[in-house]
């Protein structure tokens, strides 16, 4: 490997995807999957900052029981916009949009995705959706929560719900097209020798995610159209006063939005499989089991939506069925956790920043998953539903899980994306800050929920204050933990040391391309002769 690094001309003197052309137009009209990945990175980082800013305001507001900062109406808009932006404009496009776009062709030895122009269109759709949300924010905001439950959202609210929902509707098509693109790419464009069972597990999870995106998102689109019809034209679909059924909306909404949870977490699971193997220098423990568990999760995810509706008046027997299915979806998740842990057994473990994020992911995802069992259990869900317990649970999955995985992935592939290294000490420090800040923010919320504090409360009963202050303190630490990487990653783009093609000694085709890769990724189509994660073998045969 070192011989390769020597032969590599320096970043400035080599033509790669970043310097092949210059100017705004060369970026905005690019069809290179790697440049599109960077477009996604820019857009979702911006959206993450807005969503994070709203979260910060909320946490500050909740320092006192009567609310320290804003009017209740404003608070309601803050949590609504925070949810919409973070779910639809950060979490869902995060790993597929950035790492998926960058890595899927590289990992399978292809020049690009199957439909490069469609790929660019996906980004523009997300951009248009995002512009809608920014318009909503600037023009006064929307309330009602990211869940848009009618008849409140369709009839009673007088905020900009329609524009917010339309933004989500448009972003949904971005998600569908991205999923479609990846499915076709993975099916049709694998390099010779790259059989299904030689694929890195990241691709398995992206594939499973894409299936959910393609099959689930249209239901969300239909639901939003129906909501729009009722709000605009008073067609009675959900509001009983017009002859509709409000629970119908919840069924439709969760039929998409529960699988959407797995759109957010499955890609992170794929990232973690890559990180744990690389930094343990080992094959994944139980490759097939981990791969199939992704598919099992994708399929089961469509059958559990009713567990969001245990207290709505859904029949007891429907509740029983959704409960048992929800328990079933926990099992493949547990299997993954055990396999990642076992992968470290007798490995050669290095504590680089991406590995710290991966280890954080495994632990926090375990907690997030296990606290989900409280909500799959009918009797405890009755008490915990709609409280801060739910908030804590899904943030353990979404932030402790999905965002941790995303951060780990960004740190892992950053040298490949930019060709440069970031300061590892700072990165490890930031990972630690994120871990501590995260737990301090969200652990108290489990206790708050159990004590009975409902979510979406702008003012609350004084006995909840101590735990709320703890949570706010944690949130400020967490915010610092997210700002630090932003600084050193941007810094590294200019001043970082050149990374060379494979700074981690990782396996996988993407590490055989130079860093940053040339526009066509590989000079000649690679031929794959070994399984993924063949860390025990000598260096790769080609080179």
């Amino acid at each position: 490997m070192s011989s390769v690094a020597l032969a590599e001309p320096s970043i400035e003197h080599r033509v790669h995807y970043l310097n092949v052309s210059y100017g705004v137009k060369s970026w905005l009209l690019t069809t290179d999957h790697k440049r599109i990945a960077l477009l996604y990175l820019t857009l979702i980082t911006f959206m993450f900052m807005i969503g994070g800013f709203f979260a910060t305001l909320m946490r500050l507001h909740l320092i006192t029981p009567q609310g320290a900062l804003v009017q209740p109406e404003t608070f309601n808009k803050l949590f609504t916009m925070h949810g919409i932006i973070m779910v639809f404009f950060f979490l869902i496009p995060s790993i597929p949009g950035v790492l998926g776009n960058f890595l899927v062709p590289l990992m399978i030895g292809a020049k690009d995705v199957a439909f490069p122009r469609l790929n660019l269109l996906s980004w523009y759709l997300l951009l248009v959706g995002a512009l809608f949300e920014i318009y909503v924010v600037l023009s006064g905001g929307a309330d009602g929560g990211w869940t848009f439950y009618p008849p409140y959202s369709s009839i009673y609210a007088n905020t900009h719900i329609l524009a917010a929902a339309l933004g989500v509707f448009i972003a949904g098509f971005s998600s569908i097209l991205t999923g479609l693109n990846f499915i076709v790419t993975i099916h049709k464009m694998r390099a010779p020798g790259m059989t299904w069972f030689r694929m890195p597990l990241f691709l398995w999870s992206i594939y499973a995610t894409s299936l959910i995106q393609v099959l689930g998102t249209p239901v969300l689109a239909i639901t939003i159209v129906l909501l729009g019809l009722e709000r605009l034209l008073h067609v009675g679909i959900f509001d009983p006063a017009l002859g509709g059924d409000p629970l119908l909306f919840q069924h439709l909404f969760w039929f998409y939005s529960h699988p959407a949870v797995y759109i957010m977490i499955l890609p992170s699971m794929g990232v973690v499989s890559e990180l744990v193997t690389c930094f343990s220098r080992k094959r994944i423990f139980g490759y097939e089991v981990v791969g199939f568990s992704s598919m099992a999760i994708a399929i089961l995810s469509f059958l559990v939506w009713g567990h969001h509706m245990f207290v709505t008046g859904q029949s007891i027997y429907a509740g029983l069925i959704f409960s048992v299915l929800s328990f079933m979806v926990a099992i493949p998740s547990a299997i993954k956790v055990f396999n990642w842990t076992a992968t470290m057994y007798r490995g050669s473990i290095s504590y680089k920043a991406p590995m710290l994020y991966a280890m954080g992911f495994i632990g926090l995802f375990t907690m997030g998953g296990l606290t989900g069992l409280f909500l799959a259990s009918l009797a405890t869900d009755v008490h915990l539903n709609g409280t801060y317990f739910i908030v804590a649970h899904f943030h353990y999955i979404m932030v402790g899980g999905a965002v941790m995985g995303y951060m780990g992935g960004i740190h892992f592939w950053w040298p490949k994306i930019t060709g440069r290294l970031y300061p590892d000490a700072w990165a490890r420090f930031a990972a630690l800050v994120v871990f501590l800040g995260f737990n301090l923010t969200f652990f108290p919320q489990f206790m708050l929920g159990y004590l009975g504090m409902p979510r979406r409360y702008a003012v609350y009963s004084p006995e909840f204050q101590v735990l709320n202050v703890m949570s706010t303190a944690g949130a400020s630490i967490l915010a610092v933990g997210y700002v630090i990487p932003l600084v050193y990653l941007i810094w590294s783009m200019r001043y970082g040391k050149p990374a060379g093609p494979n700074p981690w000694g990782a396996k996988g085709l993407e590490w055989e391309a130079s860093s940053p890769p040339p526009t066509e990724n590989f000079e000649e189509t690679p031929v794959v002769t070994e399984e993924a994660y063949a860390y025990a073998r000598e260096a790769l045969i080609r080179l």
Partner: protein
Amino acid sequence: MGPGIPLHPDQASTIARGVDNLHFFLTGVTLFFTVLIFSTIIYFAIKYRRRSEDERPPEIHGSVPLEVVWTLIPALLCGVMFVWASSLYFRNSRPPTASTEVFVIGKQWMWQLQHPEGPREINELHVPVGVPIKLTMISQDVIHDFYIPAFRIKRDVLPSRYSSIWFQATKTGKFHLFCAQYCGADHSEMVGWIEVMTPSDYQQWLSGGMQGETMAQGGARLYGQLGCITCHGTGKGPSLVGLYGKPVKLASGETVIADEVYIRESVLVPSAKIVAGYTAIMPTFKTQVNEEQILQLIAYLKSLAAPEVSAPGKSEMPAERKTK
């Protein structure tokens, strides 16, 4: 934990302890596996830390017996949780038959609570300790959610649809009532108190609050005012004496139970379910009655159903005698 942080909410209903036991079991499982995974990761990370850059660890593909074990253990645990939680939920969902009724109307942003004996309360509910209370709830606008943490009960309150929930308080005191479904600007102020009293205090409170009519009396008054009696007392429409809770044969051939839902629908959308042998001549009363008045009418019909064995022709409905 320092002072000021309560660790668990009051256990103030008959079901609270059962729910908490399950909660503690789940907490135990969560702690066990979280500690197990975290400590294993840290142990491996230290024990197998990279000592030299040339290290090539042995290749391990996996282990079928291990996969089976760590599939079966979670599956087994999940099975236990499912059976435990579901049977508890099943039991908790069934109100005792002899429950006292209270009616709840949720609206932006207040709770209106109505005792059959007459007293009407806003954002406050007085109940006796040790008596099962059944709440019949409906929303006048958006979806609300009736949540009493100390009782471990929660239920969505839907527009145009009755939902019900029950509890039996086990200790006296004041307990939070929260709306747990986002319902608009003042959602977080749609809160109140459940005041659980000793039966004698409750009787005293109740007699103090009884200036007006009972719900059934209010219903009887409406029954006359709205002219229900002109058809339902003359044979033009089906008789309503002893109707509540009984099966009704419909023109469509179906049979339905005459419960709150059926009565409410029959007042608002009379054509939805036509009683066998009658024609759809009844107009809708949508614009003439509100949710509260419908509840009063239901209470009145219930009061007619109670003495079903006694001869028809109670003083409240003299005209009924002619029908049948």
